[in-house]
Each structure stands twice: as structure tokens, then as C-alpha cells.
């Protein structure tokens, strides 16, 4: 890169002038700036602009193809140059000097990173300058589950199994039921009034408790069968599941 630049300066007619080698306009600017002074903080932006524009003019004269971004930079630099040369406009914000300073800063940044990259590559790199062990045995970490369960968990689990599998133990809670004796007594007492066919439901006690009602129905049915056997009442049903009717015999 530096060689190209020297060629450009010392022998402007050399055809080695090329833009392909530059990584964009900023790269070219940086290279031109380095030609001015070693310390980038001391460069003259105006001079840099001149150099850049001259470089592009040469390239154009040699009919080299110039990528658009180089031309954009050229236009921008030409504008910056004119701003720097014109009488100061106090209203300009940022001022041309400030813009020039920023350009200088950008060149420094790029330069710093370029140098950092070179220093990084020059370090003692693993596999080039320093070497790790050629044939390591290798480490293996096997993860093993440490199963956790407390005695309580164990006993509770067995209790749960037992509770599930043991024949269920029936605890009979006091329930509202009508016993068969009660039903016989009640139906035989009421049948005397039933001259006409009367649905069995009419013989049940009035209740909102569905359990008592089911129990009373079942007991009353059995009571009706018993009383029919004794010849004290008659049973009739028009069809299966049709209402069951009773009347006195």
C-alpha cells in the first residue's frame, strides 16, 4: 500500500496507480495522512484534502474506474475545504474546524484499530508460538443423580399404596333411610284410602332429601310386594318402566 503511494508521488505517470488496493476512502485518506506525519494528531486536514483530490484526479486522468464512495468522499472533502477556507460563519454548527477534527479523530481510530490488529496477530499465539499439550488424557465429568427420599416419603408412599390396594373399609355414616318395617307400616296404613289406582310415589313421605326419597321408594316397593303377597293390595304397571300403581285389594 505504502509502495503504491510512493509511486504515485514520485512517478505520477506510473500505471500502477490503483484503487483496488484500498479498503474504501477512509483507508486511502489514512494512508495519505500517514505520509504527512507520523503523529496523526498533527496532520493538516487541508493538505490531506488536497492530496485526496489530487489522487482521484490522477486516477480519473488514467481512466481508472472509481467506485462511487470515493467520489462521494471527494465531494464531501471539497465542500469541507471550501468551508475551511471561506470567512467564518458563526452560525455554522458544527463549525468546519470541528468537522475537520472529527475526521482527524476517525482517522486516528481506524489507525489505532489497524495497529491493534497487527499487535494482536503478533502475540504469542496458541498453535504458532506456544503449544498446548500434544496428547492430553482428557477429563471426564460424569454427572450422577443423588436420589433424595426421606424415610417419611417412603412410609407415606407405602401407606398410599396400601390405602389404594386394600379392600375398601366401609364406614357407614348415619344416613336418612326408611326401613322395610317402617315402609310396611306406612303403606298398609295408607292403602285403605286408595280405592283408585294410585302411583307408588304418593305413598312416600314428603322430603327434599333425595337419599331418603330413594330409600323410601325402594322400601315402599318391597313393602308393596310383601302386602300384595299377603293379598292386601294389588299392583299394576302398564308397561316396563311405566309408573307403578297400587290400590287396596
Amino acid at each position, binding site marked *: 500500500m505504502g509502495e503504491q503511494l510512493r509511486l504515485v508521488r514520485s512517478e505520477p505517470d506510473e500505471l500502477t496507480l490503483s484503487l483496488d488496493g484500498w479498503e474504501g476512502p477512509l483507508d486511502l485518506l489514512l494512508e495519505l495522512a500517514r505520509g504527512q506525519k507520523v503523529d496523526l494528531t498533527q496532520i493538516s486536514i487541508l493538505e490531506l484534502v488536497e492530496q485526496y483530490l489530487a489522487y482521484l484526479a490522477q486516477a480519473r486522468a488514467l481512466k481508472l474506474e472509481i467506485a462511487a464512495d470515493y467520489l462521494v468522499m471527494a465531494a464531501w472533502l471539497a465542500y469541507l475545504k471550501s468551508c475551511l477556507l471561506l470567512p467564518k460563519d458563526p452560525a455554522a454548527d458544527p463549525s468546519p474546524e470541528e468537522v475537520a477534527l472529527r475526521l482527524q479523530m476517525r482517522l486516528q481510530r481506524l489507525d489505532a484499530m489497524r495497529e491493534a490488529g497487527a499487535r494482536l496477530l503478533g502475540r504469542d499465539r496458541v498453535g504458532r508460538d506456544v503449544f498446548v499439550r500434544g496428547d492430553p488424557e482428557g477429563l471426564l465429568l460424569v454427572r450422577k443423580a443423588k436420589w433424595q427420599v426421606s424415610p417419611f416419603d417412603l412410609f407415606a408412599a407405602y401407606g398410599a399404596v*396400601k390405602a389404594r390396594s386394600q379392600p375398601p373399609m366401609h364406614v357407614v355414616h348415619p344416613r336418612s333411610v326408611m326401613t322395610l318395617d317402617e315402609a310396611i307400616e306406612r303403606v298398609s296404613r295408607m292403602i285403605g284410602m286408595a280405592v283408585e289406582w294410585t302411583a307408588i310415589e304418593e305413598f312416600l313421605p314428603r322430603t327434599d332429601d333425595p337419599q331418603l326419597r330413594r330409600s323410601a321408594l325402594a322400601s315402599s316397593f318391597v313393602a308393596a310386594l310383601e302386602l300384595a303377597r299377603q293379598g292386601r293390595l294389588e299392583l299394576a304397571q302398564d308397561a316396563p318402566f311405566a309408573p307403578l300403581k297400587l290400590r287396596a285389594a
Partner: protein
Amino acid sequence: MDEFLRSVEATLFASSEPLTADEIGNHVGEGDVAAALAELATRYQGHGIEIVERGGRWHFQTAPDLAYLLRRSREEPRRLSRAATETLAIIGYHEPVSRGEIEAIRGVQISKGTLDVLMEAGWVRTAGRREGPGRPLLYATTPEFLTHFGLASRRDLPGIDDLKAAGLLDPLDEAAMQALGQLALESDGEDD
């Protein structure tokens, strides 16, 4: 440490295979490689690594008595699933017991994995086969089982009456178990 010794050391270290003294010499140049190797071997005595010769070739290796470090198992606490806990309890109370019997008692099939987990944990072992149809494999608990649960012998397992007294035999429905809290923890670890 002199330069020649350092060179031999580094060469041996970086090599991907054992090297003869001549091969080392090719790398390190002029010098008495054999003497350097002997000197290094002495220096590394008592270290965690050592320099050894096998059939005229030299290499570094980890000290044999520390080989166990290279393959380490780390224990991570994991809660036993409810299925596994129940299976373990059944084996504990009924051993020796076949898989079919465990399933009959649990009322649910058990996966192979459940028994594997219990055997891996070191709490259950196989205990021969029962003479009879199908000769089923039997399972029993191990001494570690007793140790883990703080039992002197299987007779220390709480009896049915003890369980009943502790309220552990009440027919609890799932909701009640969740409310109990203890069992809720296991319910997400169901493995079959």
C-alpha cells in the same frame, strides 16, 4: 533450569505421540538428550505428572495414582419420583418380590426405568428367581437401603398399625395428598 532441559521438556510436552531420544534431538539440536530425559524424570518425581519411557519412547503422563481424578462423577441431588418411592416401599415391605407382584400391589404397571433408578441408587438389588411358572426375577433391598433410611433392620419398618396411627393409611384422594404437601413434591417426578 538450563535451556537444553527446558527445550526437551517443551518438546516432549507438545508432541502428540511418544518420542525417541533421536526424535527429540532433531528438535532441540546439540546436546545429551538421554541425560536430559533422565534429569527431567527425576525432577518430576513426586509431581502429579511424570515422564516415562516405554520401549525407547518417552512421554509425559498423569501420575498413575491420580488417574481416578480424570474421570470424576459428580452427584446432583434429585428427588425420587412417586412411582419409584412407592416401588421402593413395596420392595422394602415385601421382599423378595417380583415385578409382577409389585405391580399387583401398586395397582399400576411399573416401567423398567423405575427399577433401574432404584438399583442405580444402590437401594435395590436382584435376589435370584422364584421357582415356579416363568421363574420371575426377584428384587430385594440392600444394606445401603437400611443405612439411608436409618433402619437397623427391616423389622424397624413401621408396621401397618403404626402407619394407621400416623394417618398414613387413610384413603386419601389426590387433592388431600396435595394438601398434605409432602407428597405433592413427588407428583411431578412421575416416571411411569
